[in-house]
């Protein structure tokens, strides 16, 4: 039996405003419990919400980046439910008319193919506080610092058909919200959270019953959780059972999903327009202004890298998939270093070193300027590419600047022909047998001689010159 998987994602991204969506309390992360929850956030009797304009602008930036319809009069609604970390007994969200309507985004699959994923809507809402269960034995402790932090909930169409596609989409949105500077993307701190709606069906059938997976805080877990859920649903169906619609919590330690029945009971949110807030009117002028302010988007950047810098589509995709990587790369090419060479180094040496040390590019001990200096020392023949890799390692370990290292370690390339000639003469003199074999037609031995010369010069001889002079002398 072939099963088809259908996945839609709901992504909550915390917007990078200074203050909360409906109050003037700070949104910064990690403060002492409840010190950033003001009267409005705590839902004191009589307090009222006033909407933060930056949150609106950020939502519009997102909408314009995914070519979405913008609703000129969106409505805030109340989602009513009781929970201790929801101070008012309702969450202010958007229901019938969200600020951002239908849009779409292109994702690149592992095969290199592109796929369009539909975005159903994106709406503004306030975050809830946090319930802490391990502080006391008999109590749950409530910290309302996060209550009222602006969220943009981005809802996709059920357009993804595998965990890999879901991850590719999530990464694309993750990258986009950072490109347009509306979210810091920090998944550990909960600034970017993914819920996945997963269902399976037989090919050609109508949509199956879905389960909603929550509590996923990394792309790796997203992939694992979806795959687990798909297997679970297929098992149920193949045994003749049926999937029930429910919310399931992903447990990354046990690597399992489990039903969250408590959230299911009496799930009637009684949405209605929030009478404390009025329709949010978006003028054409504002949209034009925001469009103007939008930075170059990843797809546009990729196209430019391919067309102007003549990079391969693959390289351009890798370099633009994360804003920080693209920024790093662009600083390098602004130093007039060859684009292809820069791309190879960023995707090669640098990326390997970052991976090995589990660092983000923003934490790289070698700055983009330093790396471009290193590459310029290759192109101006001060050092060879091979030596450059050694210099890179020394720079990584903090042994000084490019030029200091080259100077201190005496790594400067030998380009003096007479000096190279004298080394070559020695090598020829010391290896008469090989010389004879070469002259008898074993042209492969050229590599041996080059190796010997490089060894004798401690790698510093200019390889191009070595080749030329060797050819001359051995012919």
């Amino acid at each position, binding site marked *: 039996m072939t099963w088809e998987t259908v996945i839609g994602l709901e992504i909550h991204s915390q917007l990078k405003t200074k203050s909360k969506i409906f109050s003037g309390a700070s949104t910064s992360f990690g403060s002492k419990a409840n010190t950033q929850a003001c009267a409005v956030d705590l839902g004191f009797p*009589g307090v009222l919400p006033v909407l933060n304009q930056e949150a609106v602008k950020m939502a519009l930036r997102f909408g314009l980046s995914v070519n979405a319809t913008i609703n000129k009069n969106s409505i805030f609604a109340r989602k009513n439910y009781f929970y201790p970390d929801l101070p008012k007994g309702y969450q202010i969200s958007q229901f019938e008319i969200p600020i951002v309507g239908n849009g779409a985004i292109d994702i690149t699959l592992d095969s290199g193919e592109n796929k369009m994923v539909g975005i159903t809507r994106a709406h503004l809402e306030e975050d809830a506080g946090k319930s802490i269960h391990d502080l006391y034995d008999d109590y749950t402790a409530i910290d309302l610092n996060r209550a009222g932090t602006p969220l943009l909930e981005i809802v996709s169409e059920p357009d993804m058909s595998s965990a890999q596609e879901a991850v590719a989409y999530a990464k694309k949105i993750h990258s986009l919200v950072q490109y347009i500077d509306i979210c810091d993307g920090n998944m550990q701190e909960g600034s970017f959270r993914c819920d996945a709606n997963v269902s399976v069906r037989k090919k050609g059938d109508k949509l199956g019953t879905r389960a909603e997976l929550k509590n996923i805080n990394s792309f790796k877990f997203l992939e694992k959780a979806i795959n687990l859920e798909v297997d679970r649903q297929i098992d149920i169906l193949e045994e003749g059972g049926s999937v029930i619609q429910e919310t399931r919590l992903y447990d990354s330690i046990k690597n399992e999903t489990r039903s969250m029945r408590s959230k299911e009971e009496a799930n009637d949110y*009684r949405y209605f327009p929030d009478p404390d807030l009025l329709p949010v009117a978006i003028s054409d002028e504002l949209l034009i202004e925001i469009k103007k302010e939008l930075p170059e988007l990843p797809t546009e950047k990729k196209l430019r890298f391919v067309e102007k810098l003549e990079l391969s589509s693959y390289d351009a995709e890798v370099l633009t998939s994360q804003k920080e990587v693209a920024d790093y790369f662009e600083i390098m090419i602004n130093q007039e270093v060859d684009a292809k060479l820069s791309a190879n180094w960023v995707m090669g040496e640098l990326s390997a070193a970052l991976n090995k040390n589990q660092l983000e590019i923003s934490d790289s001990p070698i700055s983009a300027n330093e790396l471009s200096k290193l590459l310029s020392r290759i192109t101006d023949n001060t050092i060879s590419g091979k030596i450059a890799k050694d210099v890179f390692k020394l720079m990584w370990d903090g042994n000084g600047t490019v030029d200091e290292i080259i100077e201190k370690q005496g790594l400067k390339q030998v380009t003096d022909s007479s000096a190279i000639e004298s080394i070559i003469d020695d090598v020829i003199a010391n290896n008469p047998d090989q010389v004879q074999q070469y002259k008898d037609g074993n042209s492969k031995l050229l590599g041996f001689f080059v190796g010997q010369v490089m060894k004798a010069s401690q790698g510093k001889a200019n390889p191009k010159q070595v080749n030329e002079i060797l050819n001359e002398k051995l012919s």
Partner: protein
Amino acid sequence: MHNLTIAEQIKGLRNKDFSSLELTQHYLNRINDSELNAFISVTSNQALSQAKEADKKIANGKSSSLTGIPYAHKDIFCTKGVKTTAGSKMLDSFISPYDATLTNKLNAENMVMLGKTNMDEFAMGSSNENSYFGPVQNPWDKAKVPGGSSGGSAAAVAARISPFATGTDTGGSIRQPASLCGITGLKPTYGRISRYGMIAYASSLDQAGPLTRTAEDAAIVLNAMAGFDTNDSTSANKSVPNYTQCLENSVNGLKIGLPKEYFSDGLDKGVEKVVMQSIKEYESMGAKVQEVSLPNTVHAIPAYYIVAPCECSSNLSRFDGVKYGYRCEDPRDLNDLYLRSRSEGFGDEVKRRIMIGTYALSAGYYDAYYLKAQKVRQLISEDFKKTFKDVDVIMSPVSPSAAFDLGSVKDPVSMYLADIYTLSVNLAGLPGMSIPAGFSDNLPVGLQLIGNHWSEELLLNVAHQFQMRTDWHNYSPADR
């Protein structure tokens, strides 16, 4: 001193006939002697120190016109450091950590707060019998209700134990008690006075306003109460006129509309007589009276009693025993905490309205109730819009009857039906007033004036002109 109007007290303070401290002490004594249960809290110490501060300002020439004038604050407005209960056990021990915008505005005038007045719990009621702190007596007849929900405020002004009191009006809660207590009450246009710090009952209907003896006093205090507030998204960014400047305009040629639906079968004959006599008085001043029709009036009751409970069911969810307010003893678990704190903390009428609202918003019923009520609201609003093309002011009774006996109306539906003449104004967001117009069976009867949006100036002018020609507003319960 307590028989003086605010306008006269302002002159008295300015001429040094008495100090604010003397005036304040006089009212505190009167409150102390009163048995009406009009106050939930009397803030004597704070009042005396505010009065001293006001006297200093007056002496230094740094006063505004209302400096040193005492007032009573409905216990629905948050007052920092002072208990703010909204008439509920839920907030019996709630000391507000912040001031409402209106409280701030009155403080900025250096007015003197005498205390917090009794009210129907969370402003839900028309008799003040729904207060956790017990009913308020009508100063004209202690066996009668003062009206509600601003019953304590209306009784306090009528009994002259405060020259002015704040109120809120969601479905008639200023106008109806003003009518039943024989004083002047103004519910301004929605958005005129900030709702920030006013404990919400139904957010799209709630509006604060003054209860005073005269229209002139209402104009004077409205000058201080009204205005834009950046903390309230529904507050109108609209300049505030000087409401006293048009009081003396003539009403000659004023076009008055009498909505025929407001003079229907349920109207008490005595009340109708008083209202019709008042209309004649206006005619004698040169006003032109015509019959108008507001055909959707009767639909205001079901529309209001859906919209208001829906909003209140959500507004009152914050009272859950977690952050402030009442928490039940020894909750077994979270659900027990919620269920018992809320069931023990709220009174019957509040629970009833929460139930109705929760039901009306629940899955499957939203369209039939909430959405339908919002459409009816539109129709009611359009009725007024059409009518105000033809007339300047609409006049009508406020309440179908004068004050009724405490404990006499037991059925909630009968109580709701009596709101018929006041609800539409809130649904449409219009300004409305009740002014003393006469007596029926020795109980005061008010005349309702309804104006178009932002026509408070005209309403106050029309009311003041009536009060220049009549002396119903000067009658005191003490004279009986």
